[in-house]
């Protein structure tokens, strides 16, 4: 096992109504996925400002997956606002020479086990390959 202090951590912001129970469903199926994943339950990821994502990378988070409800978002208009925000974050990431693949916006439903595993594995492959983020 890799020593935990060098762990390349993936933060997952999972919506309370879709993706978080989706992650529970993966657990119930006992599907294994990388351990370096930290799932935080959120009401709507639209609440996070651009700086939150940059701060996370600065603090040493290697990848962030936003698992939203997508078009099934219970807050009308939130998904669109979120997508716009993420575009803005990408611009800021480029300015700071951060690989924008470290941040991904997805939609995961309550029983989307395969989609969940795919996203997590893809992000893990990426962060293992490109390593910890380097920021000033």
């Amino acid at each position, binding site marked *: 096992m890799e020593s935990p202090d060098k762990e390349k951590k993936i933060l997952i912001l999972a919506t309370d109504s879709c993706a978080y129970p989706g992650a529970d469903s993966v*657990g119930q199926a006992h599907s*294994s996925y990388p351990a370096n994943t930290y799932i935080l339950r959120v009401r709507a990821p639209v609440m*996070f*400002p651009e700086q939150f994502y940059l701060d996370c990378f600065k603090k040493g988070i290697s990848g962030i997956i936003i698992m939203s409800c997508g078009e099934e978002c219970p807050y009308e208009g939130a998904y669109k606002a979120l997508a716009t*925000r993420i575009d803005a974050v990408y611009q800021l990431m480029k300015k700071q020479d951060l690989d924008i693949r470290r941040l991904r916006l997805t939609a995961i439903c309550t029983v989307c086990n395969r989609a969940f595993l795919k996203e997590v594995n893809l992000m893990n492959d990426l962060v293992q390959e490109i390593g910890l983020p380097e920021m000033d």
Partner: protein
Amino acid sequence: MSDPKEKKNENSVNRSEKIGVYVCYCGGNISDHVDVEKVRDAAEKMPGVVVARTNSFMCSDLGQDLITQDLKDGLIDRVVVASCAPSLHESTFRGAITRANGNPYIYDHANIREHVSWIMHGEKATFKAEKLVGAAVGKAGLLEKLDPIQVNSRKHVTVIGGGIAGLKAALSAADFGLNVVLIEKTPFLGGNAAMLDKIAPFGEKASDLISQLAKSVLEHKNITVKTHCRLVGFDGYIGKFDLSVKTVFTDPSDHEQHPGHFVPFEGVETDTVVEEIIETGAVILATGFKSYRPDHGEYGFGKHKEVITLPDLIKQVGKVEGSSTLELDGRKIRSIAMIHCVGSRQIPGIHKEDENGYLNEYCSRTCCSSVLFMANKIREQFPDTNIYDFYRDIRTYGRGQEDLYDKASENRVVFFRFDATESPQVIPSSDSDYPLQVTVKDGLTFNEEIEVPVDLVVLATGMEAGDISDIVSMMKLPVGTDKFLQEVHPKLAPVEMAVSGVFLAGTCQAPMTIGEACNGAAAAAAKAASLLGKGLVELDPYVAEVDTALCDGTGACVDACLADGALAMVDGKALVTPALCLGCGACVAVCPSRAIDLKGWSLKQYEAMVDMIVAE
């Protein structure tokens, strides 16, 4: 940022130093893969944690007792439970805290079963469990006691529209004990249903149903009916709406005695107009539909007097009494063509848009049964009158409806099936004995071209959304692409509008039968009853909160807000109306001075969680 603000910001962070952490073995489900005692040891050293305990089943009475005892002893004031998915036992632990006279919101949950022990094992699992417990501790330290938002509500509902759905909704709500005002713009109760004779498929008389409902409504002590009355203003929020209505009182004798006087911005007043405010708690919209009016020339409508609509036919046949031959306008009707889907199921590129570029792409749901019901009635009452039915699909979906279709075949109604791309043509008949003929490529006989001479063509016109653009803009109601009012979600919230406290009943939502409209109306009344029955509306405490000391009054939050009216600038500061806030946090992201945050799910808490996850 200026100094005083910075100071204030630091002061506002009151971290709890009395956090209790309770880690569950889950009888091996967790402890087989995670070293639970090691997690406990780690938790005990985390900032703010005063006690960390383990139990084989934290959800058991014994496990819960650990928490309640520590709370009662004053040892802790924040609780973190690390166990299974929060969906399973979050309410259990909140309940335990409440039993110990604690506030249920001082609790956070670490999911170390579904997210840890069931997907991995060994050192990695223990390490991850520690991190997740750490994140929960980080959040718990910043949790505040919250109380559900309570809005005193009026035990009063206003129903807009006095058709069948409006009557049913008013009666249901009033029987429950709510006070009801029903407003109707015309002098009549009964709406579109009053145009009907008997109702398909079971044949109840529309007049009986309407009279029965209207009598109960008019005699009900909890209901005030206002006819000639329109909504002219809308204000307030769930539990406390103020509706401005104008009621017209007509007294013809009045006209002679008082020649009208000029009212500024209105005109000369001939009737007495009274404007008043209805103080209400919820609104049920039951504004109904309007019948599709065919375009001039559509299937010969307007060009040939022998082309009429189904509602016209119902009205005219209803007047014929005691004869076994059908005569309308002094003409003997030997054969009738009935054409389905007129103004419904229109297809872009095939059908012509209306003047506003709209097509009615939806099915009007009720016309098939209505046509067949009339066809059977005519065949049975006037056996010499032949019926030719031109359809695309026969949609007798509901209980008793397929029987109408079977019966029509028994009654020797002749069916022709046409494709939307090749609609039947209605033209003057080549047979001088008949005024009109219908030509069709019949899909039932291998697309044979058939000419049917007829005395009368009946167009089964569909339903269109009623013209309520004034109400829509006043109340800011969402409207679908079909122009009917749009519910929040067809299954999760089928009679609820996005404006909380406003409900939908009947055909203002979509075409439906009387039975379906009454179900919708009663369901809407049920929601209003749940909402207002207690005289108190309890809402989630997870709403935005402004720190006015930090607010610079940029208004960015107001622009970002997804709920109309939840945020406003008052005296240069942002002000939240909790009853309207959705708790999505869209405002939190855009505040340049971090003056607004979401109660219970704050940005600060997330930052603390991330800090704990990355902590060495």
